[in-house]
């Protein structure tokens, strides 16, 4: 199927800008409900600020 394939003139793809925890969640939810996602991240890996945290409230479990 070509990139510009459409349904009723609507494009079933979404651009998500920023691959932190919010961008990742939005991308997953869209992909899992039938939309193609372009996830844009300026760094070499996704994860954002949360990937730098040691542990998180409330269980003090690893943020990874």
């Amino acid at each position, binding site marked *: *199927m070509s*990139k*510009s*394939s*459409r*349904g*009723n003139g*609507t*494009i*079933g*793809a*979404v*651009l*998500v*800008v*920023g*691959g*932190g*925890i*919010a*961008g*990742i*969640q*939005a*991308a997953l*939810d*869209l*992909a*899992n*409900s*039938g*939309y*193609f996602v*372009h996830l844009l991240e300026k*760094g*070499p*890996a*996704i*994860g*954002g*600020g*949360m*990937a*730098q*945290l*040691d*542990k*998180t*409230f*409330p269980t*003090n479990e690893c943020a*990874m």
Partner: protein
Amino acid sequence: MVIDAYNAGLGERKAIYKYYAQAIPSAYAIDSDNCRQLGQGKKCGICAKVCPTGAIDYKQKEQMLDLEVGAVILSTGFHAFDPGRFDTYNYAGLPNVVTAMEFERLLSAGGPTSGHLMRPSELSLKADLAAAEKGLSKLHKQLKQLEGKYGKTTGEMYDTFQSAGKDDKDLRRWETLAEQATELENRLRDLKAKQETAHEPKKIAWLQCVGSREINQCDNGYCSGVCCMYAIKEAVIAKEHAKDGLEAAIFFMDMRTYGKEFEQYYNRAQESGIRFVRSRIHTVESVPENDNLRLGYVTESGDMVSEDFDMVVLSVGLESSPEMQDLAAALGIELDHYNFAATSSFAPVATSRPGVFVCGVLQGPKDIPLSVMEASAAAGAAASNLSSARHTLVKEKTFPEERDVRAEPPRIGVFVCNCGVNISSVVRVKEVVEYAKSLPNVVYVQENLFSCSQDAQDKLVEVIKEQDLNRVVVAACSPRTHEPLFQETLRNSALNKYLYEQANIRDQCSWVHAGDPDAATEKAKDLVRMSVSRAALIEPLPMPSVPVTASALIVGGGVAGMVSALTLAKQGFKSTIVEQKDRLGGHALKLKKTWKGEDVSEFLGKLVEEVKAEANIDVLLNAEIKDTSGFVGNFKTTVSSNGTESLKEIEHGVTILATGAHSIAPQEYFYGKSERVFRWHELDEAWDSDLVKNASSAVFIQCVGSREPQRPHCSKICCTFSVQKAVELKERNPDMDVYILYRDIRTYGEREDLYKEARRRGVIFVRFDTDHKPVVEQVEGGLQVTVIDHILRRPITLKADFATLASAIETRDIAGLAQQFKVPVSQDNFFLEVHMKLRPVDFATDGVFVCGLAHYPKPIDESIAQAQAAAARAATILAQKSIEVEGVVSTVDETLCRGCGKCVEVCPYGAPQLVEVAQDVHVSRIQEALCKGCGACAVACPTGAAAIRHFNDREVLTMVEAALCE
């Protein structure tokens, strides 16, 4: 070496690097600015030379891509405030003043100190000492050499240099070296002195509101909303790290622990000895002898105190990332006065430009749970406009038809992984390969450099075909991370995914026995032998596919319930709203304005009309849930409505619980006994009454029933409400005396503007503590309120025409509903999601979601975001035609079952059911779609009838036997 941004600048990395150990994609990147070959135009090429797979390509260029998309979601996140701008904290000059993010990295096992809590001033002490000693001994050697050449002692050399040295090349060189040596000797002496006083931090201070609630030195008037909680968390973890105790003190203005279970965490932190000091620190000075830090502050009783700490952590605030202004201009979206995306409370993830959505800190300062909620909400909002193109650009994954191997004897293939050097640097992989060849049923063994790489996966598919394998054992890393990948490859090879077994020879061998290659290799062989023995017994398991009923049941017809129904309706999914009352609207019916001043009743009116007009939504009023059963994709719920006896049975694929909450009716402060005492909405209702209109003084009392032992949670919205009402009273009558009696003002995020406005308008804030609660008395012509002022430290008496109580918000009667839908309830009686941070609207029971006040008290914008999120999460299920049910479920051998019901009692998911098979003869049957494969029933079963597939006794015990035999 390059400063490592991931470690907040505290460590170093190379120019070719992996961002962090668990980075996704798990690949190395070249930082071209710091690369000799790419950025500096020098000859290098070492990485290309050593890369075994030839992955390095220096010729790659930046490309421009044109993407056609139906919507854009912006989630560019935050930028931590840079405290280097302030000279008050001395962050730039003193190494032991760190930001909270730097402190996170110092605590982290993956950080620069491997999780060993150290002061930055001493981070590089050892290395610096060694370098200085090495440099000095080299200089001494060179000096000796020159002195030897002249046959002179050091003293004589100096005299010679003074008289004739300036023209002699060797003597000049001697002089330079001698100077360098003196410098280095001084440095070494300093470093040694430093080593004398070096110590692990024993006393750490956190300073709150650095770059937040600050308009003098920066323009961040807002509260960042997350720092109070992260400071408490860091203090708790730091105390756990320190072996011989750690003194932690948090200096704050208002403790803003307003989220779900935050207040309880704060209480526990106080009990554990963390000191909370209400004072804003304005100077941090150095104590040069020991690199300590001296804080000067004023206590609540007005005393000036000076106290030394080993380290100071600055709780820096969140800012919109600096590139955002350019990006916003390029995209044509509006930002607010703090450079966060401008949004309405009624469409919290929509930007000013249709089709462009926003989530996370870019929308406003916020924590992880709300960021994740908004992310799902943005996905839901984006999808609402695109449903006609759903599934047009995505490919459905298909697998070849499974080969039936049940009649075949086991043919096991073993794949032993080097994991680069991760395993092979300790475990002798070749020996393990040879050993695996000797094991029964093994017909093929292969060694891989990286078993998980794409080419190795392709090869695996080929080998399974060529060698006619029907079981696969991979000896590599952890199945927790990689089992799904290999299982998918098996499915691509027409094998059932349960014919796979993984031995973890990385974590359990090369990692934990890094110092003992012999033992690690022997253990790897043991693990492979155990896995092979089990692999011979494992069987293919069915993964039945069940069709999904593409509709939702939404319990609760307030704003949250209606918004989730509409979000689903726009995506083409039907839903039924079940509302207990005789009208839609819920709690919002009582609200007038949002904190931003938007008209709630106008919004609500339109929302109700939209819901009523929507063909995809069915509304049942005066309705009650009678019974519910089924599982994800296939629920069945019986509902009575409109007071009739006739029951309606609804089939639905998902359930959203949006049952709301209520404010309590206080038993104190003359509530209900005096017409001058209101709570919340009652003030709005009486707004134009003579009593309120003509009043010359008003008192608000905060935390009525909240943050008390019997109800420890913070009700979150009351501070903003009271401050907003106080401002409105002052707007109407500037001469009115308006008092807010509070414990901490929690106007989080940009709501802080409202607090500033209230103070500007002369609203008087008086803080009290729970030991000295205000006393309200009825006097002639009004109320008299006595409260101990925290500055004057003595009682003050206020005359008030009326008082408004910020009474606690709690749920009512949700236990029954929780039991019906098999979802848990938190200690403070709100529905409890499966994971507070990462799955904030999902329950552990698949297909059931939560939103709105029933999850926790929250303002209308957050309720709407959460409702959109619940709809988006629900849509991930409703968009599927059918769903696969996991194969690892319990099974009951009915010939052994005596129908005792023990399994029914212990199952947390309601999967086993007793069925009457003959008169008075019961057996247990498992509803597989409900079973999570936990095995509790197999443990409880007295006869051995209940067992769990894929982990039955035979399969597990054969591994034990294999472990013990040689």
